[in-house]
């Protein structure tokens, strides 16, 4: 597609260490990000998310592969790529603690070679947007962690690059600040102001802001799809059966042997069985087994998994 602004082709990063030998952090991954798209990068610790982000923003040299940011080759011509991309990598550690809020914003604008007079009104806008107005003259070290994190994101935005990379933007934030930052990012996404690639452990953040998700595990992409499609896919095969009373261990074992069970939980006097059934005929089979065991079926319905459940099922290799 012509509106691809970020293209990662066959990216591989291998770390060499005398003690641990070779570690493949990212293994031949490829994906595209389109203009004004907001994409979430998910994966367990050590999956390769940060390595991917650092390679895109040119501060890590990949072992092989290509990264194109618009028409700039990020590996051979990082300066041209950095005109179009910036990143917040370590949240509140990406700012100068001895500078106040405005000085930080002015410095990062200057770092990109922007004259102060051309960014002053934009800096005011950012201060307003991130709710930092009352703290504008305070040194960053005196701000709360949440405020520092918001300032770090604002400092990245002040560079006015069309692509923004965010590595764990809400890590360590309290619920309120996390929600506030999410709201700002969501509004930016809705207004189509930036193309954003964000990595996070917080599924709520990804589900709330992103349209598409890329799940990485052991350095490889295991899923790259719209969240909506993933939910449909998993909803289509996930069922929830509710029975009166409790299952004996023998009954439980019998069910586990025959079906792909996701979870069995007890809710008061009822037992809830969640199962992934790719063939709808299997629904009748499970009903027959339950009835054959003398279980009284209360309800049968579709299971609507949230992103966290989908993620866990994919990462655990449950996806068929």
């Amino acid at each position: 597609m012509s509106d691809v602004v970020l293209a990662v082709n066959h990216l591989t990063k291998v770390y060499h260490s005398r003690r641990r030998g070779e570690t493949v952090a990212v293994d031949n991954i490829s994906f595209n990000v389109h203009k004004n798209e907001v994409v979430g990068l998910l994966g367990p610790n050590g999956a390769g998310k940060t390595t991917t982000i650092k390679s895109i923003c040119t501060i890590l040299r990949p072992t092989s592969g290509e990264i194109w940011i618009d028409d700039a080759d990020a590996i051979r011509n990082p300066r041209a790529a950095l005109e179009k991309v910036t990143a917040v990598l370590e949240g509140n550690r990406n700012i100068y603690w001895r500078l106040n809020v405005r000085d930080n914003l002015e410095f990062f604008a200057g770092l990109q070679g922007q004259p102060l007079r051309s960014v002053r009104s934009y800096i005011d806008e950012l201060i307003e947007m991130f709710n930092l107005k009352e703290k504008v003259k305070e040194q960053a070290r005196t701000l709360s962690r949440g405020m520092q994190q918001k300032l770090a994101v604002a400092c990245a935005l002040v560079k006015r690059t069309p692509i923004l990379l965010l590595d764990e933007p809400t890590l360590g934030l309290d619920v309120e600040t996390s929600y506030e930052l999410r709201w700002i990012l969501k509004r930016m996404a809705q207004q189509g102001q930036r193309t954003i690639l964000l990595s996070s452990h917080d599924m709520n953040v990804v589900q709330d802001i992103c349209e598409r998700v890329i799940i990485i595990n052991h350095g490889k992409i295991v899923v790259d799809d719209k969240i909506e499609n993933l939910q449909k896919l998993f909803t289509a095969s996930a069922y929830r059966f509710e029975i009166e009373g409790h299952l004996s261990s023998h009954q439980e074992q019998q069910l586990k042997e025959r079906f792909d069970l996701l979870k069995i939980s007890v809710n008061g006097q009822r037992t809830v069985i969640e199962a992934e059934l790719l063939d709808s005929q299997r629904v009748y089979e499970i009903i027959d087994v339950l009835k054959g065991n003398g279980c009284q079926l209360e309800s049968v319905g579709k299971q609507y998994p949230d992103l966290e459940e989908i993620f866990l099922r994919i990462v655990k290799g449950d996806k068929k």
Partner: protein
Amino acid sequence: MRHYYLLKAMMKKNFLIIWRYPFNLVAGITSIMMIFLIIFYGAKFIDGGNPSFGSTLEGIVMGFMLWTFIIFAFSDLTWDFINEAQQGTLEQLYMSSLGFGWVSISYVLTFLVINLTLTLSMFFLMMAVTGKWLHLDFLSLIPLMLLTVWGVYGFGFAMGGLALVFKQVQAAFQIFQFVWLLFVLAPTVMESLPWVKFLPVSWGVYLIGKVLMGGESLFAMPPMDVFFLVMNSAAYFTVGYISFKYLEGKARDRGLLGHY
């Protein structure tokens, strides 16, 4: 023009940070002055009358001033790379679209202004306290100081590169402070050992000595003498910068820019 805005931003940031650590600044200047006074009065007590170059009291004032200037220049880049890595801002500097080369040049220029101001202020203070007034021809002195310190920045870059890869370089750094002292003192033996002119800073210190103690002007010096200084500093700077780029590449390969 964009490089000018980068330089301006870098200067403002560094001035503000220094300004917000006033105790560090005052303590640093006080300790340097105390060391100087101990050396100066110690030498005066032992033998203040030796007229040979480098061992006179005037020579001590000049040598100490130049040593301070060189140490500042050498340490700035290393300490600042370490500080930026510790703060988590080094990766942000690397993400400037003007390139890290320009970012570090802005750094160097900023600290050159700060160091020159501090060193010359302390130099005045040293002369006022000791009563040993040297020949101050700023039109000759400042260009020679800048040319001399140019090569030192090459070492600063190389050490900064080592700090990016190996992190704990403080021990090597301490040793180097004394190596610089040897290079500053080397001109005292230049007549008997002419090869010392090839050492870093030694030829520059020798020429500065001619200005401050001999009253010579830069413009009256043989052009080849000045040319040799330019070539000497350019060579050390180039080797240092190439080493830095090599080590920076290693740090990029290993993903060490954000670590400390």
